[in-house]
């Protein structure tokens, strides 16, 4: 065995590294190009070419107040859903890291089992719970409280959507939290920090990457929701996907439907681009600490 061997090996490795990861992702890239890239390009093209070349579909979109109102509402509902998910998921994910393996299994199952049930079924269950003569209102009334309007309100839609999307918040949060060395918190405590101080300066910053990851996933998934707002909401909680559906399926206006999709996509990118620097700087801060 000569002393040269390790060098040769690493050189080989270096050469290999250039293409190997790419080769491994090739199937995924091909799939993405076929099922995301191609349809997306088609949508953009149709939004600009139907019924004729030009920006008429975009002019129509921004010219109709109802479209803008619904676009704004779509983002507002998604933001509320994200907030509710963060508030509910954070303590839950933390609990998952703090308990023993058996209880953790139960907690994981509690998250995953609803996840395996179809969204429509879960939404209909919410109808039964939230409606005026439903479980919640019956309980309220039997306790001599006035009933509250939950179904066909934005509150109802946010509740239903948050429940459907909760796993997407809990799982990324949990995977980040379980990597946090809890001794750091203990160290902070031993150096005299109050529990709240130890949490806010040590634990919370370390867990933020999980919050961001979960929030982005939930927010983006929420933007495209269709069934839940349709069944739990009324006209005042209609989201953009419903309007797209009307344009494409009922009026065969593929161009207008495409334009709506593109506007939603571009607005989402813009918002994420605005949020990205905040997330990045927080990461660095967290790393420094």
């Amino acid at each position, binding site marked *: 065995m000569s002393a040269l061997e390790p060098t040769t090996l690493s050189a080989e490795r270096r050469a290999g590294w250039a293409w190997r990861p790419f080769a491994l992702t090739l199937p995924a890239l091909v799939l993405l190009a076929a099922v995301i890239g191609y349809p997306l390009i088609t949508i953009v093209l149709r939004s600009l070419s139907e019924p004729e070349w030009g920006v008429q579909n975009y002019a129509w979109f921004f010219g109709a107040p109802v479209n803008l*109102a619904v676009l704004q509402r779509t983002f507002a509902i998604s933001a509320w859903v994200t907030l509710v998910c963060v508030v509910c998921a954070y303590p839950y994910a933390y609990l998952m890291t703090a308990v023993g393996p058996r209880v953790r299994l139960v907690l994981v199952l509690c998250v995953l089992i609803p996840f395996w049930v179809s969204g429509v079924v879960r939404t209909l269950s919410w109808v039964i719970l939230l*409606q005026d003569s*439903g479980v919640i209102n019956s309980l309220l009334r039997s306790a001599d409280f006035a009933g509250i309007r939950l179904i066909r309100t934005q509150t109802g839609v946010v509740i239903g959507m948050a429940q459907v999307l909760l796993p997407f918040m809990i799982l990324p949060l949990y995977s980040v939290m379980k990597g946090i060395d809890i001794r750091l918190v203990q160290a902070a405590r031993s150096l005299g920090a109050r529990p709240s101080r130890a949490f806010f300066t040590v634990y919370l910053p370390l867990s933020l990457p999980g919050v961001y990851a979960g929030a982005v996933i939930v927010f983006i998934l929420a933007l495209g929701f269709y069934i839940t707002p349709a*069944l739990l909401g009324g*006209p*005042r909680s209609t989201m953009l996907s*419903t309007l797209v559906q*009307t344009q494409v*399926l009922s*009026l065969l206006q593929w161009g207008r439907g495409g334009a709506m999709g593109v506007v939603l996509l571009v607005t989402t990118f813009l918002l994420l681009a605005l949020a990205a620097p905040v997330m990045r700087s927080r990461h660095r801060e967290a790393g420094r600490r």
Partner: protein
Amino acid sequence: MLKSKLVGLGAALTLGVLTTAAFAQDKPVAGEVKEGSLKGKTLTFVSYGGIYQDGQAAALKEFVDKSGVKLLNDGPTEIAKLQAQVESGNVTWDVVDTGDLPPYVHCGKLFQKLDLSKLDVSKIPEGQVGECSVPAMNYGVVLMYNKEKYKDNPPQSWADFFDTEKFPGVRALDGSGDPTGGLLEQAFKVAGGDPKAMTAADIDKAIDVIRKLGPDTIYWKTGAESQQLAESGEADMLMMWTGRAMTAVKNGAKYAPAWQDWLVVMDQMTIPVGVKDTDAAYALLNAYLGKQSQEILAQQTSYTPINNDAQPKVDQSVAAFLTNTPERQTQGYKQNIKFWVENFPLAQEKWSALMAGN
């Protein structure tokens, strides 16, 4: 030379006579199908799934058994999907069940103009055969009200439905998709207009009448939801499909129909442009229109059959909601199809704005 030409002429003549004879023999009779005539062929029938399509499949069973055709069921019907098929020249849907307006809106473009010599339409109720469609079944949109809430003073018409002062209570309307032309005409009448003289500008007036029902108004998204609204008592007055109204009452909902001006609606049967075997599609349609098929359909789905001779054996609760009795026929209100076909995009735009809370 001459001889062979003569022979050729003779052969042509004979062939001509034979084909004429064959045509005479082939004059279609609704419900009849030739034994083994479609052996080895495949037809795809597209409808809306659920009990309805199951009933249609049962109605077509004899046709399948006799003709030897392989029948595939697909769905739900989406005009956008059909458009994509027609535009790409690859039409896999042979016979398509649609809502009442699309065959008129897209006649000749997505749906074939029907050759009525290939169908027996003599038993179809009057005025229901379109240029591109025959009816698939009849049903109604009916006003259902809570008997316990309105007791001795029940609503009797759409005018009462829109009168929230005289008849307080939560209303529920069909928000499942397209606007219902007949309802908009009734709303326009409440606004003081004459539905027969309705113009495009009047659509707004009609929609305003509906908007005035207020923010508590429920727009149901599915037939099942409308049924649930009646069974749970969430809504005091509902606009409902007769099939769902029947099931709700059967399940114990204390609701009753106000039949005056119930809205006549139907599903349509169509053959898309560009199907591979048009004659096979016609054979299916013709079998579907038969008396026996229509009886099976009505018995399984509780929808009203579209063959005048059909006498389905149904129990009383179903019979109470069939719409082809003489009494119902005089009470029914027919929308102005021509007007709604011409103004479909405009009406849809206004309607979906209402549906989006604006």
